[in-house]
């Protein structure tokens, strides 16, 4: 491959420069780490990411114009050890072009939003430098052409999520949330590493285009090996993209500032797992078992998280579990073989979830930090812009027809029965989860914006709509959430609406082979239109139900009194955290205490002290040789003389 552009490195480096300027230069100039004004730091950071977006757009246009199929830039050879060749190479093709635009575009909007959100914050320069570093790492993840670079970015975003979640580190709980995110991520990364090692062993290379090329030219891999590799990589994806059992960090990650949740946990970092699977789709195609595992884990996670979301009171927690649930949908799509659909849902989810998070941030900002929905209500007339945009986002999330979420979710639901790797039960789980999604979206809107005002008097005084810095990004994202779905109109509707093509499918075809969905499902003989209409009815009715019912009451046990214990279980998140604490954290802590008290103090310290004491005692013993008495020394000399004489007599004189 030859270099055909120098844009890619700049796209990567601009946020990095922003990181250094906000992180090093600004403190040096202002003489302290918390002295930079938020607006200045924010302006610098937004400028850098904005320029990265423009460069990304330019690169995208180059790809779109058809002059190249991919853009490649090899900067230098990083490692060359025997068989292992890892250069620092960046490659943009149609798949990561989309992701680059998402990262830099939505990233710029979020940077802009953050200027308003963090305007009263002291450590703003630190925040913006971390945000820029995150964008740089995420770009490295998607643009890197070999697995080690991808992993470098993978770890980098893990680090940045730790830094940003634990941004207000003086609060122990928030700091612990950051730690939890990083540690759980790292557990998944072990799986990713094992997958990488196995890939290197069997493919002899770690460069993505070579792996995919050797698979497409018919390289045979034993079934069990392929399954092992895919499952190992999936474990990594589980950690990063918060699926069962490693999803536990994402709800806690809401301790960070809300724009962070929007960028990292809605739009970008959590989608890294989906990107990785989409990128390596020829490898995953080899193993039906691994795909089945992925699909089932994804579906079950979606259902699981959806059930928890309807019982939460914190607005950000609802969105967090919603994110886990939607990620489950994406993995479900990957698991049935619909990789393009997964990318489509990734894109639409980025739009509406970022919108929802930023909107919730606006609400929280307006309510002076109040996050509990039971203490909000009736905010519609006070926060019109926020309400309008969040309403669009909620509609998109629920899958109301013609909004973006509808197209992508529907494609996933139909793929579960239309593709050869699909299964029938997945459709049912998907539909139930879609219903739950609509319910909790409606519930969220109802409890926050409609119904009675339950605000605290003090909070009500400070209630104000956010400034334009925060509302403009909201509107931009609302437009994308509303109309973004038209990039992926299925052929059924496209024919009706006048030959609208499935733009995304055509775009991604060269990277991910398109799988034509038949009109009638394979696993279950249902026509696509039936699925579509059915899911629309479910979505609309559940959304309306959610909006109507939860204006007056908050929990499902107030609706159906028999569900009291269910509500307790759901509100306690199935007590999974406590279970992990008991099974894993406690034993580990006990072992650590044991090591510290016994092994460290008795064995190691004892050993070291013994050396000191031993040396001293030995010295004491040897000291007694120095008697000071010359005649003793003479005796010792004589002893040596005797030995010499003996030797001389034996070997010279007695021969």
């Amino acid at each position: 491959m030859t270099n055909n552009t120098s844009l890619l490195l700049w796209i990567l480096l601009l946020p990095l420069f922003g990181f250094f300027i906000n992180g090093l230069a600004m403190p040096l100039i202002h003489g302290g780490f918390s002295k930079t004004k938020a607006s200045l730091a924010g302006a610098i950071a937004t400028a850098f990411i904005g320029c990265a977006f423009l460069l990304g757009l330019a690169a995208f246009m180059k790809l779109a114009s058809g002059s190249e199929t991919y853009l490649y830039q090899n900067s230098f050879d990083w490692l060359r050890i025997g068989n292992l060749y890892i250069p620092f190479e960046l490659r943009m093709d149609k798949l990561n072009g989309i992701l680059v635009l998402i990262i830099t575009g939505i990233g710029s909007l979020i940077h802009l939003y953050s200027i308003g959100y963090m305007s009263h914050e002291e450590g703003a320069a630190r925040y913006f430098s971390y945000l820029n570093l995150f964008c740089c790492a995420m770009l490295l993840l998607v643009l890197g052409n070999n697995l080690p670079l991808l992993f470098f970015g993978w770890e980098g975003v893990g680090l940045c999520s730790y830094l940003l979640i634990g941004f207000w580190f003086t609060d122990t709980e928030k700091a612990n949330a950051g730690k939890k995110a990083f540690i759980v991520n790292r557990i998944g990364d072990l799986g990713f590493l094992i997958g990488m090692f196995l890939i290197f062993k069997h493919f002899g290379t770690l460069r993505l285009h070579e792996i995919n090329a050797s698979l497409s030219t018919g390289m045979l891999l034993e079934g069990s090996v392929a399954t092992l590799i895919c499952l190992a990589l999936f474990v990594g994806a589980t950690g990063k993209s918060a699926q069962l059992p490693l999803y536990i960090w994402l709800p806690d990650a809401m301790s960070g500032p809300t724009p962070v949740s929007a960028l990292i946990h809605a739009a970008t970092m959590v989608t890294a797992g989906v990107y990785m699977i989409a990128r390596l789709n020829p490898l995953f195609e080899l193993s039906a078992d691994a795909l089945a595992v992925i699909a089932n884990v994804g579906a079950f996670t979606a259902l699981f998280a959806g059930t928890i979301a309807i019982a939460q009171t914190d607005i950000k927690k609802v969105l967090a579990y919603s994110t886990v649930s939607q990620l489950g949908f994406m993995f479900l799509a990957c698991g049935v073989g619909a990789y393009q659909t997964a990318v489509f849902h990734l894109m639409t989810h980025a739009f509406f979830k970022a919108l929802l998070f930023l909107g919730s941030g606006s609400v929280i900002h307006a309510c002076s930090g109040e996050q509990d929905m039971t203490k909000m209500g009736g905010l519609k007339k006070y926060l019109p812009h926020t309400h309008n945009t969040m309403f669009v986002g909620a509609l998109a999330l629920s899958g109301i027809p013609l909004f973006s979420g509808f197209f992508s979710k529907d494609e996933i639901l139909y793929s579960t029965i239309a593709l050869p790797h699909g299964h029938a039960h997945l459709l049912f789980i998907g539909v139930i989860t879609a219903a739950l999604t609509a319910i909790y979206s409606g519930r969220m809107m109802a409890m926050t914006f409609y119904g009675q005002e339950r605000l605290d008097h003090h909070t009500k005084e400070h209630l104000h709509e956010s400034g334009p810095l925060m509302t403009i990004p909201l509107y931009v994202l609302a437009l994308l959430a509303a109309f973004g779905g038209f990039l992926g109109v299925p052929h059924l509707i496209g024919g009706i609406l006048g030959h609208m093509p499935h733009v995304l499918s055509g775009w991604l075809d060269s990277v991910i082979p398109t799988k034509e969905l038949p009109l009638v499902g394979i696993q279950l003989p249902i026509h696509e239109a039936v699925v579509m209409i059915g899911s629309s009815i479910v979505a609309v009715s559940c959304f309306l139900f959610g909006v109507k019912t939860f204006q007056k009451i908050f929990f499902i046990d107030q609706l159906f009194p028999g569900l009291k214990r269910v509500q307790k279980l759901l509100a306690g998140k199935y007590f999974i955290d406590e279970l992990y604490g008991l099974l894993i954290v406690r034993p580990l802590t006990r072992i650590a205490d044991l090591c510290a008290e016994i092994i460290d103090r008795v064995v190691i310290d004892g050993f070291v002290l013994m050396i000191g004491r031993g040396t001293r005692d030995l010295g004491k013993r040897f000291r007694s040789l120095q008697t000071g008495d010359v005649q003793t020394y003479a005796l010792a000399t004589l002893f040596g003389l005797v030995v010499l004489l003996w030797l001389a007599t034996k070997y010279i004189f007695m021969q």
Partner: protein
Amino acid sequence: MDLKVQVLAAFLFVVGLLIILTKKNTIILLMGIELLLNAANLSLVGFSNYLGHIDGQVQVIFTITIAAAESAIGLSILVNLYRNFGSIKTDKAVTLKG
């Protein structure tokens, strides 16, 4: 005759060694040193006589001379020892004891 002389020289040497190692009186110790030197001289002269070289006897002249010088200095040291430690017992001069 030669063997007798040499064996006597060896014997005198050993006795001199024993005096140095076991006696507590420094003057006797110095006398032991003289005995050692004497034994060496005897052996030298014996071998010079046996083998027919005159160099052994030349060496003996030098040795006797140096032994005289050394005994003079040894006695001066003895006087100093007596002045510093108040006694000529060897077990009193052990300030270098570790």
